[in-house]
């Protein structure tokens, strides 16, 4: 097994070399964000800023309502995930464990929606929401998400049809358990890992979403963090104030990275559940 050990060392070496390419941009961003505008164009560039200054963060924070932006993003994420996931779990349970007339047609129709690109529906949706006077509110970004995402339904259905034995449902039925109660007390707890995986993925997707918020949100106080950060660029790129722009980028990244480090096992688990295999 000596041969195997040597290849392991080579593999590790290559991966570490690649790692530099992967994380250098992050380090460079943090480093730039801590420099003052005067020092940023120094040649050769310095990786460790001297002096270290947090003034860029203070300025960015004062320049745009970033706290509001965080709150807006958070509101969308929390509402869409709690209600949307619950609703998706309900229909996944029905599709995964029961037979009923038109089930196949309904499910196939829903799968078909995955084929519709957002750009086809974004214009008519925008027109519709502007008729309702919902432009510049969070509603167009929340309401469609409450009906349950079909990808999530599909995913949980895959999971539950294997994880929940039919006998268990039958036994509960015989014991006189009502349909919603079986769902609530038996199916939902079994779904937990699948729901957690989808919550982690959903958080990233919604938090990082840009096109939708860009279309609908116009007043800075109502914008999500991504739209606010993007507008920083327009504000500071003219003066080439990269330290400030990098500070904004770091602020936008921190919550996602924190959530990722706490939830990363669910990302891996979600792959195992989805049944993608070689």
């Amino acid at each position, binding site marked *: 097994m000596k041969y195997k050990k040597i290849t392991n060392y080579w593999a590790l070496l290559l991966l570490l070399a690649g790692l530099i390419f992967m994380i250098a941009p992050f380090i*460079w961003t943090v480093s730039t964000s801590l420099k003052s505008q005067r020092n940023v164009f120094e040649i050769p560039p310095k990786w460790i800023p001297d002096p270290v200054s947090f003034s860029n963060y203070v300025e960015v924070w004062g320049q745009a309502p970033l706290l509001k932006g965080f709150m807006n993003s958070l509101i969308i994420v929390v509402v869409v995930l709690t209600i949307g996931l619950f609703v998706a779990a309900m229909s996944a349970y029905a599709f995964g464990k029961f037979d009923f007339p038109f089930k196949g047609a309904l499910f196939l129709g829903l799968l078909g929606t995955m084929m519709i*690109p957002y750009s086809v529906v974004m214009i008519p949706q925008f027109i519709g929401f502007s008729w309702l006077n919902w432009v510049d509110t969070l509603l167009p970004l929340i309401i469609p998400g409450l009906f349950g995402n079909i990808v999530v339904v599909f995913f949980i259905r895959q999971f539950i049809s294997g994880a929940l034995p039919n006998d268990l449902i039958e036994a509960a039925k015989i014991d006189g358990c009502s349909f919603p109660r079986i769902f609530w007390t038996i199916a939902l707890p079994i779904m937990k890992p699948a729901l957690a995986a989808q919550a982690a993925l959903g958080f990233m997707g919604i938090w990082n979403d840009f096109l939708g918020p860009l279309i609908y949100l116009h007043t800075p106080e109502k914008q999500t963090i991504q739209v606010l950060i993007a507008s920083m660029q327009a504000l500071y790129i003219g003066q080439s104030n990269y330290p400030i722009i990098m500070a904004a*980028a770091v602020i936008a990244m921190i919550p996602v990275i924190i959530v990722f480090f706490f939830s990363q096992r669910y990302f891996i688990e979600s792959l195992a559940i989805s049944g993608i295999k*070689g």
Partner: protein
Amino acid sequence: MNMKLTGYRKKELAWLYLFVAPPVLGFLIFGLTPMLFSIFISFQKWDMISSPTWVGFDNYTELFKDEKVFQSLFNTVYLMIGIPIGMAISLLLAILMNRSIKGIAFLRTMYYLPVISPIIAVSLLWQWILNQDYGLLNHLLWNWFGIKGPNWLGDADWVKPSLILIGLWGGVGGNMVLYLAGLQSVSSTYYEAAEIDGANGWQKFIRITLPLLSPIHFFVVVMGIIGAFQSFSQIYVLAVDGGPEYSGATIVYYIFQHAFKYFNMGFASAAAWLLGILIFIVTLIQFKFADRWVYQD
């Protein structure tokens, strides 16, 4: 079912339809209706202020007369060069990681980090790294290789390679994890049998690993092409107004400009349908040819 429905079954059916109703309603309200409405708008001239006027196929004929449509389509397809490159890198990374070394979990996390990072922040940081005069990349190129780096995002010839580079950095981690899951499910008996037959490492890779991973290749290609067709956010930040000579604009960026900058709703809807149909056809072709090369057990 010939039996008369029992009371319980009747109740159960009611619950079932109630449970599946939300996504079905969501599809009707936010999918099907907008889609049909979009077809209708695409035959109108409408700025959302004055009332719409019927113009027949004018929007579509105008679409095919606009050079920028073809430019943005070309750009979009060009960016897909990144897909096979990314697959090769992801697979290589996955093979390197598919062994029990201490610290692999940490490496996997770090490689995955760009995937979950907000695309806007990532675009901003690359904009700075790719700065012609003071960017990190050009500085390193000059220092290490004596190469005078190009004006990455300011030169029409370099915008697309820059976007591909950024896409690779941000994407290889995601596909790597997929390939890793695939590799771990390949049974070792295949390799043992091949070893008995005297196959070397390269032969095992070509004859066993690659074909057995074909469902993942397929998934990555299909999703990659759909994703590339819809790329927008990085373009919005990195190629302002489509970049020099419109060299960075993708088709979604083109649609976005016409819809939400010029409020040319009819025309933009026609362009959106062009994209929708293209995605549909390309995906259909891929599924059609899938059974020729995708291995199913």
